[in-house]
């Protein structure tokens, strides 16, 4: 039972015809439209809105949303293929996409009522609206259930109070999936999720964080002061909010793992190109075995990480239990990305330390994958609890 091989082994890794076409569109778009401006996005600290619109037109923003609700009707495997390609070019754009798709459209598609989907999901899936996910608070991250934001029932509505922290896409989102405590005595079973629209009175955007990496993606504080939210904007049952968050994060972690694979691949591809150009001691640095060993290790680890990501994605597609598989993929892939970024800077030597070359950006971008949507320590916790048979994880 408790085994690291969580899934029945399915060794056919052939992508379907659609998945291959999706990968090709994502690869070519990212290479042509994103890669040339990735350094500028980082430096200016903003992903152009026009790019987000383009991702909407291409169907990236509603990739796994059913066609009935304005999406492309593809699957999680297609989503991770797109995430890898977009993040290979630009991790800032990757997290704008990832937060929107796996943290906002996914819970709406799964827990939303038809009326909510009609109103919000269609716009989100087409990329007309941007979504975000507000769980973390200044005093609670890993221990999200100890949140202080409150939801008080008042007739046909709820009144929300509190502050959410570190919210990706928070500054511009049209729709925020937010969590608040309605019954502190019930602890995590008292939490309620809501889909709150931009402009609700009392709902304001606070400071934007200055960050080490993924600088093109905005990270905002959100304030809720007596915000009246009609009950029909509640997502899932009363008390089901924490389950909504956990199910959402299981998917999100697969997306972040794919982001990590994309960043690691950028490190490898940039390293390869540089190692073939740069000469020292009368030969290409690629001819040194020490450099070859780094490149070979990077390639091996990236392959392994990608396989874990694909496995987790296909388990989610098949409706199997996948919390541990998602955590495994994220734990490993984020570690691979951070190591690949370190080796990439090393292969670039002094130039790796300069902003003129992409290695420096990869080094700063890679680190976040070990932190958000659950730190590596929390991933270990999830994996261990699954093995130990403790269902409370």
């Amino acid at each position, binding site marked *: 039972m408790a085994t690291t091989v969580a899934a029945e082994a399915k060794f056919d890794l052939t992508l379907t*015809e*659609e998945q291959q*076409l*999706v990968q*090709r*569109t994502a690869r*070519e*778009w990212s290479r042509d439209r994103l890669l040339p401006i990735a350094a500028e996005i980082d430096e200016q600290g903003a992903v152009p809105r026009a790019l987000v619109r383009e991702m909407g*037109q*291409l*169907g*990236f923003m509603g*990739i796994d949303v059913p*066609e009935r609700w304005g*999406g*492309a*009707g*593809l699957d999680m495997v*297609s989503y991770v293929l797109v995430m890898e390609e977009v993040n290979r070019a630009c991790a800032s754009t990757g997290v704008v996409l990832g937060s929107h798709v796996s943290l906002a459209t996914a819970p709406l598609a799964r827990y939303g009522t038809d009326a909510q989907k009609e109103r919000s999901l269609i716009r989100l899936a087409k990329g007309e609206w941007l979504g975000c996910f507000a769980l973390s608070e200044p005093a609670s991250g890993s221990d999200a259930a100890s949140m202080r934001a409150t939801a008080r029932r008042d007739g046909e509505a709820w009144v929300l109070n509190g502050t959410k922290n570190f919210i990706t896409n928070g500054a511009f989102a049209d729709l925020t999936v937010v969590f608040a405590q309605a019954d502190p005595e019930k602890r995590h079973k008292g939490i309620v999720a809501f889909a709150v629209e931009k402009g609700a009175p009392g709902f304001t955007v606070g400071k934007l964080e200055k960050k080490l990496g993924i600088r093109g993606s905005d990270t905002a504080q959100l304030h809720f002061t007596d915000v009246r939210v009609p009950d029909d904007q509640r997502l899932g049952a009363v008390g089901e909010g924490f389950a909504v968050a956990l199910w959402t994060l299981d998917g999100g972690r697969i997306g972040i793992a794919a982001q990590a694979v994309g960043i690691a691949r950028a490190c490898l591809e940039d390293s390869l190109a540089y190692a073939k150009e740069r000469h020292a001691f009368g030969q290409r640095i690629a001819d040194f075995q020490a450099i070859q060993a780094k490149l070979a290790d990077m390639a091996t680890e990236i392959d392994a990480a990608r396989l874990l990501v694909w496995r987790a994605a296909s388990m989610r597609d098949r409706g199997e239990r996948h919390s541990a598989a998602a955590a495994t993929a994220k734990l490993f892939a984020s570690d691979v990305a951070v190591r690949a970024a370190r080796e990439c800077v090393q292969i670039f030597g002094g130039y790796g330390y300069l902003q003129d070359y992409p290695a420096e950006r990869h080094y700063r971008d890679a680190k976040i994958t070990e932190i958000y949507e659950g730190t590596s320590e929390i991933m270990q916790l999830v994996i261990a609890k699954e093995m130990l048979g403790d269902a409370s994880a």
Partner: protein
Amino acid sequence: MKLLVCVKQTPDSTVRVKVAGDGRSIDASQITWAISPYDEYAVELALERKDADPSTTVAVVTVGPTRSRDALRQALAMGCDEAILVTGAAAESLDGLAVARALAKVVEEAKPALVLCGRQASDDDQGLVGQALAETLGWPHVSTITKFRPADAGPAGSVDGIDVWREVEGGHEVWRTSGPVVLTVQKSEKEPRYPSLPGIMKAKKKEIPEKDASSLGVDAGGAKLEIVKMEPPPARGGGKIVKDGDMKQTAAELVRLLREEAKIL
């Protein structure tokens, strides 16, 4: 208006092609295939017309091995309405003229108002099929076009001609054609669109009917051209850096080398 676009599947432009062991074909084992770039422009140009007038239908056809189906799937995902695959043993080794003859049969059946081809395929660069198709059909053709649209119609909206733009030195030529025509495409107004994800899913639901090349009256034996040998270009020699002496001496030495060794002055 019904448009028919002829496409060929060729190695993707990012692929490094190698000559196969037989010395007369390319090694296909490691190749990613794609729609030949000029053909992709032709698809884009047809789709731009459809964008402007949604009553337009765009069909796409290829003659080639079964793997060519992927190129058709991509064209459908870009937004084409239907696709026809002409394949079978006979379709594996046709020359340009035989391909044009097979396409002519498809055109006669599909009866499009006009046919678009890329100006040449990126693999063999022959630039033959479009013209040969026009000749076989007995249709006029305009080559290396960059734009077309129905000629300005009378108030009744009846269109009886097509205006066609060709890029020429310093400007454009505009041609007006009447009746069905074959156009070969130089480029589209915009870069070819990426197949959107919803487009990919829509394409998935479409059948791609298959026609056997031999049933169109073409057989492999009918090829008039045979490739006897393929050779990679000679490996490039190392460059030479002229650096001895002052600027004047270097320049003199450079001129001497260009004249006597490179023989280009």
